[in-house]
């Protein structure tokens, strides 16, 4: 007589308590009188790296030898797969360990980004939606929920919530009470049990919901997938946060912004009408307008409006033009509200900032918060906010005689102290003379140049304009990062855009996009240099 062996594979990250989860399962199986074997490849050093745990169990048959258990999961032959993180589910699918014929897959929607994803200069995040789509296609049943969030809310580890999720999808041939008993009575057992129960209930609720999806091989649980992923970012983000759609297609779906709420300065009675703009551009322009008021004043916002309106008039509506216009609105808004000392000091002293810090640190009301800023203002940054003439003189002097001692040194400013707060507010006052500042002059000149090129491109080739609209994406950061971005921007503008404008030949959209991508490929401009050199030859 043959025995049915039940196989369970757990994908997790080192340090998440996967070993504890494995022990709970083994303990339950023993209590339940099953033959069981479990193994893992932790290696003592596999800290924060991908790791997996594999368990097999079967009924014991009187008189027959115990079943022979395997130590390594066999592709296509795993009954239950549970993962504590979404890309770990992708990894197991990639290895063929999830099969539509037999595998029930339950995964957390939470992401713990890998270094490779995080270190990209643009957006290197792996597309969560693709993992969801793959799960729908490859698993017999696919259930997702944010196990990390549940763990956070119940004060436990993801091992406990994953235990609940696996129990909820029926991975174990024993009841819920057996699982709860296995968690035991230690100091953290209460929280573990709460996490277990919340995940268990979350999963069973999903499975009980009527199927609203016509996908084959998948049960009701899929109905909630998209909603869940949307929710994944909720813990940290505000309204307007969107489902991450990145990589491959760069089409970004921006959430419809609410009517911009105008912060503490600027002024009410905002009635600028962007109705002649296409929807996407209108939404972004509305945001940009509010941003400019918040940044400087109403007149500055008018300048923004005028610039956008003028771009819109450069070409008749078409899907390509509309897309280019939207992107231009986004980039123009960000560019016009570049971060100088005054802006940073202003943002760092707003009440909502402290409220956000308290929330992020999960502080209770009876706890006191001190905030210390890590600043290192350099000569460039000071010159940037000085009146243009003075700033230029100052930079010349620095070049000859070196930077004054207090600049370029690490400064720790306690914004929550009276002294520090006052100093930051003082710095924020540079906003008043921003229009006469050195950097303002430089930025506005560059913006005008870009706008002129945009205008010409929109009329001739909306595709080129769409690429050109992306170019200011390179302008970001502070200090060396900013210098690098500017260098790359100028290199591309001079070698690609300026000649195109002069020759009125806007056929090189693809080349321009390639150059932008190259600039974002590495911080040392290796790829960009190669790209520009190749194009020049």
């Amino acid at each position, binding site marked *: 007589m043959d025995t049915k062996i039940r196989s369970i594979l757990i994908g997790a990250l080192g340090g998440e308590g996967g070993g504890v989860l494995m022990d709970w399962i083994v303990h339950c199986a023993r209590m339940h009188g099953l033959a069981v074997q479990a*193994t893992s490849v932790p290696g*003592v050093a596999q*800290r924060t790296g991908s790791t997996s745990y594999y368990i097999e169990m079967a009924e014991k048959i009187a008189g027959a030898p115990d079943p022979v258990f395997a130590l390594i999961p066999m592709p296509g032959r795993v009954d239950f797969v549970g993962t504590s993180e979404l890309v770990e589910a992708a990894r197991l699918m990639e290895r063929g360990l999830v099969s539509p014929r037999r595998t029930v897959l339950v995964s957390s929607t939470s992401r713990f980004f890998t270094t490779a994803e*995080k270190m990209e200069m643009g957006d290197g995040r792996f597309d969560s939606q693709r993992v969801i789509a793959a799960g729908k296609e490859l698993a017999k049943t696919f259930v997702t929920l944010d196990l990390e969030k549940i763990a956070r809310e119940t004060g436990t580890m993801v091992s406990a919530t994953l235990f609940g999720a696996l129990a909820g999808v029926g991975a174990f041939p024993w009841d819920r009470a057996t699982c709860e008993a296995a968690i035991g009575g230690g100091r953290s057992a209460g929280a573990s049990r709460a996490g277990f129960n919340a995940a268990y209930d979350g999963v069973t609720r999903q499975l009980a919901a009527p199927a609203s999806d016509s996908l084959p091989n998948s049960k009701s649980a899929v109905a909630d997938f998209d909603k869940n992923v949307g929710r994944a970012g909720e813990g940290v983000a505000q309204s307007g*946060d969107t489902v991450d759609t990145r990589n491959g297609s760069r089409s970004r779906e921006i959430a419809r912004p609410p009517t911009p709420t105008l912060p503490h300065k600027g002024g009410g009675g905002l009635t600028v009408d962007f109705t002649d703009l296409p929807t996407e551009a209108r939404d972004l322009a509305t945001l940009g307008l509010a941003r400019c008021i918040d940044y400087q004043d109403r007149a500055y916002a008018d300048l923004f409006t005028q610039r956008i309106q003028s771009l819109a008039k450069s070409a008749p509506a078409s899907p390509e033009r509309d897309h280019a216009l939207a992107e231009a609105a986004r980039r123009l808004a960000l560019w016009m509200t570049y971060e100088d000392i005054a802006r*940073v000091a202003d943002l760092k002293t707003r009440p909502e900032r402290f409220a956000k810090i308290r929330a992020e640190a999960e502080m209770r009301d009876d706890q006191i*918060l001190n905030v210390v800023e890590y600043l290192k203002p350099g000569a460039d940054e000071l010159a940037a906010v000085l009146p243009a003439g003075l700033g230029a003189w100052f930079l010349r002097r620095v070049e000859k005689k070196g930077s004054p001692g207090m600049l370029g040194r690490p400064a*720790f400013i306690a914004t929550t102290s009276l002294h520090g707060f006052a100093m930051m507010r003082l710095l924020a006052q540079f906003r008043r003379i921003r229009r006469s500042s050195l950097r303002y002059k430089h930025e506005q000149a560059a913006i005008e140049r870009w706008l002129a090129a945009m205008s010409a491109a929109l009329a001739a080739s909306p595709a080129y304009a769409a690429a050109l609209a992306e170019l200011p*994406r390179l302008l970001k950061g502070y200090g060396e990062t900013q210098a690098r971005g500017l260098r790359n921007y100028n290199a591309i503008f001079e070698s690609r855009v300026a000649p195109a404008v002069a020759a009125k030949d806007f056929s090189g959209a693809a080349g321009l996009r390639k150059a932008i991508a190259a600039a974002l490929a590495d911080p040392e401009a290796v790829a960009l240099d190669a790209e520009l050199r190749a194009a020049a030859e």
Partner: protein
Amino acid sequence: MERSFATEIESLKLGEGEIFHGEGILAVTKALLQSGVSYVGGYQGAPVSHLLDVMVQAKDYMSELGVNVVACTNEASAAAMLGASIMYPARGAVTWKSIVGTNVAADALSNLASPGVKGGCLIVVGEDYGDGASVIQERTHAYAMKSALWLMDPRPNLPTIVRCVEKSFELSEASHTPVMMELRIRACHVQGEFVAKDNVKPAVSTLNKAAAAPHDYATLAHPPVTFGHEVAKYAARMPAARRFIVGHGLNEKIDGRHGEVGIIVQGGITNALIRALQEIGLADAQGRSDLPMLVLNVVYPLCPDEIVGFCAGKKAVLVVEESQPEYIEHEISSILRRADVNTALHGKDMLPMAGEYTSEVLVSGLAKFIDKEIPRLGNSGAKAYAEEIAELRSKALIALGGPPPARPPSFCIGCPERPFFSALKLVEKEEGRFHVSSDIGCHAFGTFAPFSFGNSILGFGMSLASSAGVQGFADKRPIAIMGDGGFWHNGLLSGVTARLLNKSDGLLVIMKNGYTSATGTQDLVSTPHPEFKRTAGGDSTTDTEMTIEGTLKGLGVKWLKSVHTYKVSEMRDTLKEAMTTSFDGLKVIVAEGECQLERQRRMKPLRAAALAAGERVVRTRYGVDDETCTGDHSCIRLSGCPTLTVKTSSDPLKSDPVAHVTNGCVGCGLCGEAAHAATLCPSFYRAEIISNPSGFDRFKARLRRIFVKAA
């Protein structure tokens, strides 16, 4: 030590008939005690660390039994310990990670194997091969053959492993030869059960002392007796071993109805083979196979009679032997040829030379064997299986739009070694590329993104030695990085003293975190004193322990600087100075900062107690202002901290994700330090969260609330 084995120690005490539940490597520990072992030693390393760790922690129980437990400083020192069994009836066991540990131990092993032993000797090696392995992929088998040591490779279930441990001692004594047992990673970590026996108090022990053995020149690995040893190995010891192996039925024969063929398999991969046979319908879940099998729990030496007996009359056999080269297959080939048995022999012609033998790999090899030698079994389903899995993978890849990003292990949150690599990255930015000799240990994570440092790894503690040749022609001074673990394991002698002897130039960085952290924070000779740790609470204590500095000074190192790793700017400047100074000779930078696993473990209970007692407690964490971060991620490229991550900006205008510090932050401060040192960005802030604030705290808070809203 990172882990507490309080529960496991209790299971070591189980008696006759009781059920042991637990990990494979701890079952080995229990089996050693059941075998009456006198002394145990070893050097830590996954996957065998737990064997020794549990014994070190079970000090009281070990002294009760009279077992002498020694934490050795490297594998050579562990292997040399077995010398006690050459002339005394003392059973001894040592353990280490192989192949690397066996390489280090090789000299002592040769010298042990030559005279042979009186008391049983067992060397438990963690065969770090295949998925999850962290070392070069080679076989311990070669050492068994070249030194004439016997090698066990038991089936990976606890009863077999335990039986093989017990039988190893008997085999060792019956044949006067040390025995090795190889256990693969998953077998070491396998959770299972076996019926325990009483522990046996050793014949000679710390409680039952022995008089010094008489001088017997024959027990020395020294000429001329070595010539006699060589003869004895093959004339006496090996035949005795074969008699024992056959006599005690250490290898298992599984009958099957298709007797015209057969499979010879290493014990350690039998389960994978059975699963593969099951897939193609030739075995059941209990392991009853249709193809006869000879399972070799002892893979060296083979017993010719057993092999011939199994093969004779068969049309063909398949040798399932993982890793390369195919020593067993070669030996079987010789045995069959000599016995004039003309059974066709297959193995590496049908199975891959390299890589782990998973069930999937075995299915495809079995299919080839069946097709060629027993085609009447017809379409076994192997082809269908291969197609099914290939399709699954291709579907996954298409749906995912490409392979998911790799996730190698990395420095822990708050690790003091990460800031060193941030500093090194800043040096590289200013000075250009330079040669970096890497080493084994946590700091090897510096070879991964975002740091990507390292031009070579030549073994544990070998970094300085490995830069000696480069030193001669490198245009910039090469840097050798090693941990304090590597320094004591080997680096001091092979690296430091060699430079001093040659009075040559060089730059060594010693990562002094106080423990061999990668293997589970075992103690070193330079581990901070418990008293320092007690008074330091949650602070780093490595600045109080000067054994490394004292040793270097004593040897005559003139250029020596200690820098706390979290001082990123100071570390960068010190590195630059060391790289450019005209001082000709060895320069050593001790990059100190205590392993945060140990530090956090001390801090957590202290903090919890203080909070419970209503005392004022300050928690520090770092953060990034979403509004001012522009999403370039330079900070991440300089840090790689798991809690410094990215998130979708709350600003719908920003399309690139912004940096974000999660609440897992332990407040180490590297991100702020790096932002300062590299002049990155003003977005970083430090938040100090005061629980149970004092009256003065509250007064200040009230006062400032007038100005600073919501803080």
